[in-house]
């Protein structure tokens, strides 16, 4: 391990002591299929501080989706501790789990909007589930749609929207109930580069305005460079590197991180930037 890497990991442990908002400790998950056992997460340790935009990168099959799905217990981990805010989420009984999930927003690669509902009704959905009054719902939905700049599409159906617009609705829906955390599973992977930029801008904007903690997973380094402050590299169920994005980008130590940087340098046609300064 290089000096930079050891220095980095010390730094991130310090963060965990002071202001860690999401803590994942020794998380294991194995899938049992009739043919074989697939060890997907093999002891994940992670801390995310409040208000951070934290990116997790990894190749296909590394276990990114499984990890993020463990955070809202869509997937039940075999062992380990997951703490978000005050909640120790692997211990929550089912009723409380639903209440807790109402406070965790999630957005998806394929948006997963309800085709039977208009844009308004989609954003209203989590509020209906949480039991808000009609008046409150109307007020909240309208302000959410203003935030994602879709006020003019309020009565459209998802079938009438472009991919970027659908993801904006997805974001509005995820944020309607004022969650503490937003989980993003490849939210821009189905979008063209320009739309990707506008969605990422929206996420950064929301992070700044609402102080929302965002955890996003992706297989594109560009997405992390553009959006995140801190990142972790996931390789075959293990976090092999974590720290500030700039450090890892300019001085990768793990094989996977090096490969991502190399691929990024060779293939990135998109001239993306670190907050305004060209690379």
């Amino acid at each position, binding site marked *: 391990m290089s000096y930079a890497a050891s220095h980095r990991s010390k730094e991130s442990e310090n963060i965990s002591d002071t202001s860690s908002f999401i803590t994942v400790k020794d998380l294991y998950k194995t899938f049992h299929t009739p043919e074989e056992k697939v060890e997907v997460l093999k002891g994940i340790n992670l801390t995310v501080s409040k208000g951070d935009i934290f990116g997790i990168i990894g190749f296909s099959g590394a276990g990114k989706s499984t990890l993020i799905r463990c955070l809202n217990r869509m997937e039940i981990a075999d062992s380990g501790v997951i703490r978000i805010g005050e909640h120790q989420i692997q211990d929550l009984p089912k009723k409380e789990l*639903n209440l807790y*999930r109402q406070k965790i927003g*999630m957005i998806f690669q394929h948006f997963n909007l309800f085709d039977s509902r208009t844009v308004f009704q989609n954003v209203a959905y989590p509020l209906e*589930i949480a039991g808000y009054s009609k008046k409150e719902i109307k007020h909240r939905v309208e302000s959410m749609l203003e935030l994602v700049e879709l006020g003019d599409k309020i009565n459209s*159906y998802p*079938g009438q929207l472009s991919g970027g617009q659908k993801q904006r609705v997805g974001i509005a829906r995820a944020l309607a109930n004022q969650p503490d955390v937003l989980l993003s599973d490849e939210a821009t992977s189905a979008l063209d580069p320009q739309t990707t930029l506008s969605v990422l801008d929206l996420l950064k904007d929301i992070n700044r305005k609402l102080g929302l903690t965002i955890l996003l997973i992706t297989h594109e380094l560009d997405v992390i460079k553009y959006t995140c402050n801190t990142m972790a590299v996931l390789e075959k169920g293990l976090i092999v590197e974590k720290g500030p994005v700039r450090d890892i980008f300019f001085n990768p130590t793990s094989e996977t991180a090096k490969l991502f940087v190399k691929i990024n340098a060779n293939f990135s046609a998109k001239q993306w930037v670190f907050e305004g300064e060209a690379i």
Partner: protein
Amino acid sequence: MNLHNRGGFEVIKSAFGPEVWAIVAPAILDTLYMTVLTMIFTLVLGLFLGIVLMVTAEEGLQPRPLFNKALGAVVNVLRSLPSMILIILTLPLSRLFIGKAYGPEACIFALVVSCVPMFARLVESSILEVSKGKIEAAKAMGTPNIPLITKVLIPEALPSLIRAYTIAVIAIISVTALAGSFGAGGLGDVAVRFGYSRFKTDILIAAVLVLVILVQVVQFIGDGLSKYITKKRFLI
């Protein structure tokens, strides 16, 4: 009147004549009465049974594999019996429950037993078509099972459910006609009693014509409604 004693044209003309319709018209009412009642029962019970099958399946919202297998087996047995056999089997049950084994009411029991399992399976497969992603999203937003069914699964599957119900209603019409000859009355009864046993081809033609029109109308309404909803959602 039939083709042995009259020409084809005359038989057809007579099929639209007042004497024939004096017999057929009341039968239409009987058939509609049985069909509509069976439709209501099938909708409610079939929807419920289909949802129970879906929910309790191994990959369902509330897995109860043993119960699911048992229920599935009952449904499969009922589906594998020809409607005629089911009618014969259930008539004694009708006597037990409603005190008589003839007439429209008695047959409705048989009709429901023979149509509910079919519609339940169609409901099950319609709801299974709802994409996993949408269910994931709903669960990730903390949706308990009941609202998941009423607010997500049924509305999302609605066009497909309507098509399934259309198929079920057409089956109900056809089984109702069949039940006619077991004392239920209606168009099937008229067609068999007059058209078949007494060689009144004109009555047979009139009864068949009405059945064909009924089925066409149902198909037209079902297709139209399903298409209307799909279009409204901009999915086609």
